[in-house]
């Protein structure tokens, strides 16, 4: 570690310019100090200037943790690149920390690169409370075990020259420092500040700009390096948003008319955005009294001919299961977005996990076939809503969209969608029901039926969750139940017959095939690239359809000596006490793939409460493949 005295109080010399293809920065603070706002503005401006960007929110598990404890670290990681960035990377190159305890948290999680530059508020070193000073000293000692460069910054002293309450100013001061180090366009930053504080007064805006400029000039005088990441103008117009915003906008674009929900982390912000804009597009958000009611309202609206969806996270999914069964049995279309978080139970509300896959597939009791999709990128979060709606209506079933906290809160630019009004077409032909048409007049080949809406002349029938025949008459005959079960199931086989096989990233033959799903795509493919650069014969494939699964998977597997899933869920490790090949609990996708392909699919899974790092996946690849391309 460079000594704290390397802080740059000396006379400014021309800064050393570090030209790199990518760089990762974190801003961390106690909750409520605005580190996330700082990072969001920095990321948005960087994206607009032509850098690839991926951000990850660092959120404590508690809403209001005590101050100055490592567990309370709150902020963002922003990974910047010359080209598109698809994941949060491995370690951070530069940190701005509002106290040494939150910095320590990142150090303990091995989140910091060995040569990281750590700019840390140093007022705690001079605090009146000897316990705080002791904590500072202990932290510095612990940090000194790695060769970081620590730069003390008198943030509070500086901010107090402009504001009375530095807790509300440090984030903009930090933004100014970043603007200087990364040579960000100050006009764009000011525009972004104006946008972020558009509901506040002009005075608030002016004060934030003053703090921004203060930080910028402080960095000019005190920071002896700059980081230059080449930028490239986008070929197409880009939009910058997180996955929850993409889901919300995708819902509007797809012609959804109702979002029925109950607040739950990390899904709630979908409805936050919708509540601001949905009504302008003819939609509405209904916050129900609980998760169960939210699902019921969405099903009821859909039954009546509206296009409805509900959004939730793990514990909410558990509560909705009875209603999901009803929607499947009555063949009422429903889109359900599940933003996965750590579980079981309330688990890790703010942390990413992919542990709901099996729950999503098998949640409802009885035989309840339905469609499960998983977007792999934030861009796909937008477009998948159009597809989900269409599939739900065509196949008259539940379509679950599984995202996760990584997609939900991560921010990245992607090409502005080219909207098509045909996405919003009315769901139904409301012409009078044809003579002889039955409410469940299943096509015996496909299981598909034409939907009847209450009020359509000639379409009167009783709706029931009980087993029923083609006329929707309650039927207890085993023959009818066998037939109706087959019809509901057949729809998935039909959909599967229309799917294209998943593409393979890399050659179609090799030593190892990595299989992933959901938000891990970027990290997996980066790990695969790095492994191939080392000579390892590894490829990957990423599944978007989990029920039904895409076709041709077994054939793809046949091109590789080993197949391994990489997932953010729990699996036993061979070698752990009592764990054997026979009783080993595997990753959830591995479980499914083994069952559906009879291939001995291995898995590497982790539940760290954060996105997977490409470096960690690379280590797993190395551990399962021979080096140098030898078989």
């Amino acid at each position, binding site marked *: 570690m460079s000594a704290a005295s390397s802080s740059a109080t000396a006379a400014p010399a021309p800064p050393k310019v570090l030209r790199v293809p990518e760089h990762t920065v974190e801003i961390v603070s106690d909750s409520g100090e605005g580190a996330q706002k700082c990072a969001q503005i920095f990321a948005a401006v960087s994206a607009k200037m032509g850098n690839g960007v991926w951000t990850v929110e660092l959120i404590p598990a508690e809403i209001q943790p005590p101050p100055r404890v490592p567990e309370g670290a709150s902020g963002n990681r922003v990974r910047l690149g010359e080209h598109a960035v698809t994941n949060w990377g491995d370690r951070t190159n530069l940190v701005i920390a509002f106290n040494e305890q939150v910095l320590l948290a990142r150090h303990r999680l091995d989140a910091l690169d060995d040569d990281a530059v750590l700019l840390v508020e140093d007022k705690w070193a001079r605090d009146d409370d000897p316990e705080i000073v002791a904590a500072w000293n202990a932290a510095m000692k612990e940090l000194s075990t790695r060769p970081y460069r620590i730069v003390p910054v008198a943030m509070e002293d500086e901010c107090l020259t402009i504001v009375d309450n530095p807790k509300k100013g440090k984030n903009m001061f930090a933004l100014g420092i970043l603007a200087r180090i990364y040579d960000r366009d100050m006009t764009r930053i000011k525009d972004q500040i104006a946008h972020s504080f558009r509901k506040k007064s002009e005075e608030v805006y002016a004060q934030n700009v003053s703090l921004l400029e203060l930080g910028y000039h402080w960095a000019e005088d005190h920071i002896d390096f700059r980081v230059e990441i080449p930028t490239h103008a986008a070929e197409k117009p880009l939009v910058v948003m997180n996955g929850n915003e993409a889901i919300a906008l995708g819902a509007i674009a*797809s012609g959804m008319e109702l979002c029925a929900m109950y607040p739950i982390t990390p899904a709630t912000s979908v409805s936050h955005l919708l509540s601001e804009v949905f009504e302008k597009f003819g939609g509405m958000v209904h916050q129900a009294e609980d998760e169960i009611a939210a699902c019921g309202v969405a099903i009821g609206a859909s039954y009546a001919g509206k296009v409805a969806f509900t959004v939730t996270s793990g514990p909410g999914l558990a509560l909705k299961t009875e209603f999901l069964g009803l929607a499947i049995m009555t063949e009422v279309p429903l889109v359900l977005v599940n933003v996965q978080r750590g579980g079981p139970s309330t688990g890790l509300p703010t942390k990413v996990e992919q542990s709901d896959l099996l729950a999503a597939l098998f949640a409802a009791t009885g035989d309840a076939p339905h469609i499960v999709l998983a*977007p792999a990128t934030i861009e*796909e979060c937008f*477009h*998948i*809503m*159009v*597809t989900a709606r*269409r*599939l739900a209506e*065509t196949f008259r079933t539940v379509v679950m969209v599984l995202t996760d906290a990584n997609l939900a809160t991560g921010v990245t630019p992607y090409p502005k*969608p080219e909207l*098509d009004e*045909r*996405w919003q*077409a*009315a769901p139904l*032909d*409301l*012409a*009078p*029901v*044809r*003579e002889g048409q039955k409410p469940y007049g299943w096509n015996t080949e*496909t299981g*598909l039926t034409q939907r009847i809406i209450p009020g359509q002349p000639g379409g009167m029938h009783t709706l029931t969750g009980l087993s029923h025949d083609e006329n929707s008459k309650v039927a207890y005959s085993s023959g009818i139940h066998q037939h109706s079960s087959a019809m509901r199931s057949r729809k998935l086989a*039909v*959909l599967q*017959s*229309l*799917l*294209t096989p998943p593409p393979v990233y890399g050659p179609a033959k090799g030593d190892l095939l990595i299989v992933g799903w959901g938000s891990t795509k970027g990290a997996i493919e980066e790990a695969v690239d790095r492994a191939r650069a080392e000579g390892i014969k590894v490829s990957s494939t990423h599944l*978007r*359809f989990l029920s039904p699964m*895409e076709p041709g998977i077994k054939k793809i597997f046949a091109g590789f000596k080993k197949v391994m899933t990489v997932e953010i869920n729990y699996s036993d490790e061979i070698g752990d006490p009592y764990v054997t090949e026979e009783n080993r609990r595997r990753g959830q996708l591995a479980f499914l793939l083994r069952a559906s392909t009879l291939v001995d699919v291995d898995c590497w899974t982790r539940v760290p409460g954060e996105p997977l790092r490409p470096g960690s996946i690379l280590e797993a690849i190395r551990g399962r493949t021979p080096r140098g391309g030898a078989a």
Partner: protein
Amino acid sequence: MPSDPRVAAALAALKQPIAEFRAAVQGALAQADAFLAAQSADESTRASRAGIALGEFGARHISAAGFAALFPAVAPADDASQKALARAIDILRSVAAQGESLFVAEVTKGRRLGATIDDALAVAGRAFGAIIITELVRGGRYRAAEHDRLLDASEFRAWNKAERRFAPPLVVEVDGADLHAGALLDFADGREKLVLVVRGDSAPAALVRCVTPGTFVLQTVDGSGLDRLAGYEGPAIAAVVPEGAAVFMHDPTAGKEAWQRITIAHLPALPTKAVGGSSAWQLGEDLKMLADLARTPFAVPGALGAKGAPAMGAGEAVDRLASWLLDSSGLAGTA
């Protein structure tokens, strides 16, 4: 554009019901166009449409041709059905293309108010026939002999319940002398909204005879209250009258009794001269009836004075009743 600014103001107030009627027409037109397009679509066209409907994500992972093939091609409509549909589409297009004039009528010299409204609504009402024809053709239920008359102009009295709920609102310019309330009652059904813009001298309380428990009735000078009329879920009739006429509102949602529903902002003195075919005595009867309807069921000093009954809240009515009881029993002021 109408030259009388009161007409423009009335149209602005009726924006929502106008939009609802237009949406019904546009929706039917879209359905009809889609049906015609489906009639002529070959496999590749159907696949292309399916690909778009599935969105970018779906198009990358799902065979659009296979998706389109899941549903049988639309059964071809016979010649008679196609011709009827073409006529229906023409009517819908013509109605959709018409601007505000569709929602404005004028009672010209020699014509009667009722006939003018009937004719104006019948033009718009052809759209309802066209919508039904569209549905019949799409549903394979069209029979020329039985259904072709639907495309003729259709008077309000022939409209069914659903059509009356989507009835287009109408602003009618009329001379005060031609304003006969009786002609309006035929249209007080469904969600029909009529706004009369009255020119010249008129009966001071002509619309009072339109007051029924479920009809929103308004006389206004400056257009205030038209927004409430537009939002009312039942039939509504308003007149934008010249200065000096009675100003009142009958809002069926305001209470069970007539006096609770009627608010009088201005009640003029009894007229001394005839207007149009109505004698001064007849006009005076209108005013007295308005006052009677608005009269509270107990003595309220000043309630029926020259300025009419002020609006009352339920709490205020209770206070007044208490006051009247005390007066009646001679107990006032003894507490």
